[in-house]
């Protein structure tokens, strides 16, 4: 299936947006502007961009603690995301959710979750709603390699398979939980084979090739809608930064990090591919400038916007 030039540029643009958004956050954190920690997805832009851009607005996603990329790729405004991380009223969650818990219902983002594997069973419920309401949509459930050892992962896959639910399970295998490498944590064969063991069609792909991600998600989405039942993608990728801001990266070598940055970076690779296919460097430079401007504008706007007021938080716990 041919991807149009427009889509290619969109995919590139979204990866750049995610990369620069995360780098802006890094800078803000360094300047002491952010409270709490962050789980940056630098290096994993292709899975977020490729997957979400293959979905429609009414398709849903659930996201993870490392979810800024998912949120942006599903259509979120950088301003409202910065505002959320800065505890502003204009933030997606009015400053109550923060980095790990951003939801954007209007764009079909059912929310990021701070509990590893926390959203797998939730996505099963949302898929059940689609099935009961006879909607022509799917839910794409993002989770990491750490999640595949949680009990809820197994319960969710088992039930989704039994009930033929329209969930696309997408594992972003960045090869480390927090400090534990997947080969020390995951018994048996590949993560994808766990999907197969529940009777779910599963595939392992290069998560740093944005077109591969896009095509496979689109493919599986169409299959889910035509023949019912969940699908499973294991997208192999890599994160450049530590798990969170307190991570000293003692569990991996700087050589390994350098290798992934130089040889496998999703953005670098795609730029190479786009230029080879005839897209001009100037066009890419324009996109870069646009996004930098957008990020700067959004950060400034968020910094200037009012803090979320202290309302009766006990009352706000209840609908």
């Amino acid at each position: 299936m041919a991807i149009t030039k427009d889509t290619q540029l969109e995919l590139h643009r979204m990866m750049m947006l995610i990369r620069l958004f995360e780098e802006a956050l890094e800078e803000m954190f360094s300047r002491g502007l952010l409270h709490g920690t962050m789980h940056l997805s630098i290096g994993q832009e292709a899975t977020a961009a490729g997957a979400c851009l293959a979905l429609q607005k009414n398709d849903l996603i659930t996201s993870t603690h490392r979810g800024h990329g998912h949120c942006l790729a599903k259509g979120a405004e950088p301003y409202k995301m910065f505002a959320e991380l800065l505890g502003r009223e204009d933030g997606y969650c009015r400053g109550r959710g923060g980095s790990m818990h951003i939801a954007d219902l209007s764009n079909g983002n059912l929310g990021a979750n701070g509990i590893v594997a926390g959203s797998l069973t939730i996505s099963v419920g949302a898929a059940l709603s689609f099935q009961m309401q006879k909607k022509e949509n799917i839910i794409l459930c993002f989770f990491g390699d750490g999640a595949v050892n949680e009990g809820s992962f197994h319960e969710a896959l088992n039930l989704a398979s039994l009930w033929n639910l329209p969930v696309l399970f997408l594992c972003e295998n960045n090869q480390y939980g927090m400090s534990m490498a997947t080969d020390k944590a995951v018994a048996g064969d590949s993560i994808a084979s766990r999907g197969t063991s529940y009777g779910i069609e599963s595939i392992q792909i290069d998560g740093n090739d944005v077109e591969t991600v896009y095509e496979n998600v689109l493919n599986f989405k169409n299959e889910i809608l035509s023949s019912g039942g969940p699908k499973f993608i294991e997208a192999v990728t890599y994160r450049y930064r530590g798990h969170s801001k307190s991570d000293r990266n003692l569990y991996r070598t700087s050589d390994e990090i350098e290798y992934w940055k130089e040889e496998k970076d999703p953005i670098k690779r795609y730029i190479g591919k786009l230029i080879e296919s005839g897209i001009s460097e100037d066009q890419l430079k324009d996109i870069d400038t646009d996004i930098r401007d957008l990020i700067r504008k959004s950060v400034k706007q968020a910094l200037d916007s009012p803090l979320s007021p202290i309302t009766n938080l006990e009352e706000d716990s209840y609908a």
Partner: protein
Amino acid sequence: MPEMTTGKALNKALSLILEKNSTAFIAGEDIGIYGGAFGVTDGLLAQFGDERIKDTPISEDVIAGLAVGASMTGGKPIVEMQFSDFIVNAMDPIVNQAAKLHFMYGGSVNVPIIVRGASGAGTGAAAQHSQSLESWFCHVPGLKVVTPSNPQNAYDLLLHSFVDPNPVIFMEHKLIYKIKDNVELNEIPKESSMLGKANIINEGKDITIVSYSNMVNVAKEAIAAKELQNYSIELIDLQTVSPIDYDTIKNSLKKTKRLLVCQEAPSNSSVGTTVISKIVESELFNELEIAPKLVSGLHSPMPSAKHLELNVIPQVEDITNVIKSML
């Protein structure tokens, strides 16, 4: 007004809910053709079909989790923990998800779920099938916790819980399932069982007894004891243990100036200790004539032998004796 058991009253409430709400559905273990371990969903599969009455594998985590996800996307799930003890396997979806999402997402989403469970002791089911864990959930902001005590309030409380936009933990003590009484099967449930409202079962002026769940029935028997016939005893059924109706309790205490709380659960960090603590902290402290007391289960896992089990659970005489000592 027909006479029926609590189990049947709940069944009627569920049936009414499913009839009137096309997005409502029930999920749980053995709730379909088996009719539920305690018969509460008996006949509903035949009435509503397997799209609405969904038997699940033994998977409490995803049973509760799917309720959260479905409720965020237009569904109205009522899920069952076969024994409320199994809710422990569902703690993440309930405590970290259901209770938190409305707040964390800045009010942009509601999680209107009911998680029902068969709780309590007295059937010889022993330690892992007899617990009263309601106070665990009272400790979590964002959840409501409801504990019916009889057929009528079970019916009404379930209907009220269904229309509440918050996640509700609905703990049905096993011993109330077989209690029979006349039940008004109204489409609009009674105001006296609105969530967060306690019900004064017996009016009096000498002492206030606060209780909930099956212990209300034990307390009822206790206050009917011959030795207490000369006393006027006010018995309050909390009905909802989170949030607690302190207004009703305080108004009662202004009259009686004596407080006794009775519960089956052990006392540490329980509903009863919370009630007593709140009253002691309040403006009523100086008006009390005697220190408040708590009659509670022993701090022990539930033994299986009958005579040992009865030793752990407060009995009628235990309550009668404590009342006598306070009057």
